[in-house]
């Protein structure tokens, strides 16, 4: 690490968020130096703590959940009972301290708690607030509750995944939530830039559904222009052949593709079929698509004899696009990800030493990093309420007595 402060050092973030869509925004900001306070309560802990595996020793436990940990490293964890007036008062003070407030409750809920943007803006005109939910804050279905895993189907992405003519396919977890969290981070960072120039805050209403559609902007425009309805098409691509995944030795798979006659020639030479490019049926993209079965069986015969990693390295040296189909386990041994230190080991007080996911990008001068393991429920109450908000010992004790931290 260089001695310079991180990019977002000094930025305070308060999260009234749970599950993925809110907390993942805070994680990205925390990894680049923001001070992020994740607010829960003992009555209503973040649903990712107890509702989804994996758990330490396979048993659900409030502080042993790997799913919660994965999205909440590098943050401070506090508890506030938002149904308690003292809890709400401290929540407002926390928001007055923060630069950014993130919430992903159902529309209207945060407002009923007295923590809506209009109320908070009154004490803090420069506040940036992100509300992220299924459908957005307005519209006829604004109040729809929903899971990101199912919203991924409404947004067209599941329907575009699967074998041609087969059923749609599940994408792992709440896929669309991470599109929304990434775009949410873009929006709050843009709002920070505006605030530096004009000192005005911002209210960002993010619909996870709409954010997801940006990942299908091309097929949606194509429909509006020509009426063509995109369909799931196995691993095919209209502009490449071959283009698919092939079984390798030891149960592995390799993905590879050829996007020009030259690339096909290089592949053919590399797999010991130098005669292929001279055959009339393989000479054009259209020809290779018609003869896909013959090509696929030739490639498959070659890959089946080889380990995926060795086959991919050989093909890359020959100038062919190829990569092993990494399993979740492979991601921890992939030499490129290891080189980038993508996974960061941290010692969690309950889970023990385990891995956290690093940023997708690095900054050369002010690098991002996983700074600390995910907080235990309420672990940082002292540090935040006494240290950051400056409550006296007596006030802190009386707030506790009044149930503010329950």
């Amino acid at each position, binding site marked *: 690490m260089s001695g310079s402060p991180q990019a977002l050092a000094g930025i305070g973030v308060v999260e009234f968020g749970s599950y993925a869509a809110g907390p993942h925004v805070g994680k990205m900001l925390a990894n680049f130096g923001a001070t992020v306070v994740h607010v829960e309560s003992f009555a209503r802990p973040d649903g990712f703590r107890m509702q989804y595996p*994996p*758990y330490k020793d396979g048993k659900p436990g409030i502080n042993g959940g790997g799913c919660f940990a994965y999205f909440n490293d590098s943050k401070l964890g506090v508890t506030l009972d938002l149904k308690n007036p003292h809890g709400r008062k401290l929540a407002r003070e926390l928001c007055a301290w923060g630069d950014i407030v993130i919430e992903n409750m159902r529309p209207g809920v945060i407002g009923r708690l007295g923590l809506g943007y209009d109320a908070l803006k009154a004490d803090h005109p420069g506040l940036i607030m992100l509300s992220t939910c299924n459908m957005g804050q307005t519209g006829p279905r604004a109040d729809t509750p929903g899971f990101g895993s199912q919203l991924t189907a409404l947004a067209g992405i599941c329907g575009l995944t699967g*074998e041609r003519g087969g059923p749609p*396919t599940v*994408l792992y977890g709440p896929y669309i939530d991470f599109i929304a969290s990434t775009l949410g981070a873009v929006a709050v960072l843009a709002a920070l830039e505006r605030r530096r120039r004009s000192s005005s805050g911002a209210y960002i209403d993010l619909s996870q559904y709409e954010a997801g559609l940006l990942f299908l902007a*091309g097929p949606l425009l194509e429909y509006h222009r020509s009426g063509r309805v995109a369909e799931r098409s196995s691993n095919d691509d209209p502009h490449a052949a071959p283009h698919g995944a092939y079984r390798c030795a030891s149960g592995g798979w390799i993905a590879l593709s050829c996007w020009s006659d030259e690339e096909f020639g290089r592949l053919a030479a590399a797999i010991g079929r130098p005669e292929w490019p001279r055959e009339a049926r393989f000479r054009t993209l259209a020809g290779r698509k018609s003869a896909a079965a013959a090509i696929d069986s030739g490639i498959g015969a070659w890959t089946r004899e080889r380990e995926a990693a060795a086959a991919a390295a050989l093909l890359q040296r020959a100038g062919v696009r190829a990569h092993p189909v990494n399993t979740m386990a492979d991601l921890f041994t992939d030499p*490129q990800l290891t080189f980038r230190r993508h996974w960061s080991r941290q010692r969690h007080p309950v889970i023990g030493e385990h891995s956290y996911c690093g940023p997708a990008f690095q900054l*050369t*001068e002010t690098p991002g990093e996983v700074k600390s393991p995910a907080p235990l429920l309420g672990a940082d109450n002292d540090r935040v309420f006494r240290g950051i908000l400056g409550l006296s010992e007596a006030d802190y004790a009386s707030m506790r007595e009044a149930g503010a931290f329950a």
Partner: protein
Amino acid sequence: MLKGVLVLDCTDRLGWLAGRLLADLGADVAKIEKPDAEIDTSDWRSLNLNKRLVRLDLGESAGRRELERLAAVADILLATFTPGTPQAALFDYARLSAVNPRLILVAITPFGLTGPKADWIASDLELMAAGGAMSLAGEPDGVPLRVSAPQSYAWAGAQAAVGALTALAARARTGRGQCVDVSAQAATIVALSHAPAFVDIEGTTPTRAGAFMTGRSVKGARFRVFWPCRDGFLNFILYGGVAGNRTNTQLVAWMRECGAPLGALSGIDPARWDPTLATQAEVDALEAPIAAFFSSITKREFLEQAHRREMLGYPVSTVADIAEDPQLAARGFWQDVAAAGGRLERHCGCFAVIDGERPALVSREDARADAPRAAELT
């Protein structure tokens, strides 16, 4: 929100979304394209909207000089390339920063600027493989699948926009730009949710489950996720818990109103049923009457009833269904932008509503016929 931020966008398909997101939030984005580059595809048009088009041949010294001149006044330069190629030399950070120390260079590459695979080449398919996403999609015994429309490019572009703005925040304090090294492989890992945590904490490796959900019943039952309906498919799962039990209760009520046979559903209390204790035979028996009922209704009927009844579940939309969704129309998501020949093209609007308004898209169609003088950018 990004008014006055000048972005030079030298990306290919891998990075297009980054500039589109910045442009939607008000940045002035100049898209650099070769004189003969194809710009009429739906992918190009949808992801380069809101940018101005500047035709430059970076293979010629005049084009390269012009790029350097623009880089001298830009805030952010977005570029895609493979490290070690001649193209990469155009985007050498040390040289660019000597000319403009405030410049933020966002290098979007398949695997990152350095490392054992830095010079590997990849399209969406290989990136979805490298990022682990393919291992999680497809039938359990079948071929690992990608999404049929490229997703890794979008993950890379979106994370590049986060990186560009994070560096902009750092510059506000230091006055200096820096290089943002975006790995498309690492960006794709964001799509996996917490699947990697199973390896780390349990020593298990999540894999693909086709059209079913597993891992919820202690008796090993699998639950149907996708159901054929009259005009396509629905996404519906027999969940437990508060939300699941409300959903199941409402479904049974809805089936009753329609006179649909309840079969095994009549033998359970849908407000209490616990999927974690269900055997496969029980799940199959419960799913049979639901499957028969769903086959008689349309996607739109399901969407409307599920909303009215506060049920979890959504239709599996096609792009045509999405285009007709009243929720999107009510929020002004679609924006009609002038295109060639006086046509209007309907695009996805800005991804967020800011201070109660969705920032308007700007047609840069005027820039097509006669690329603006680069001087206009300064």
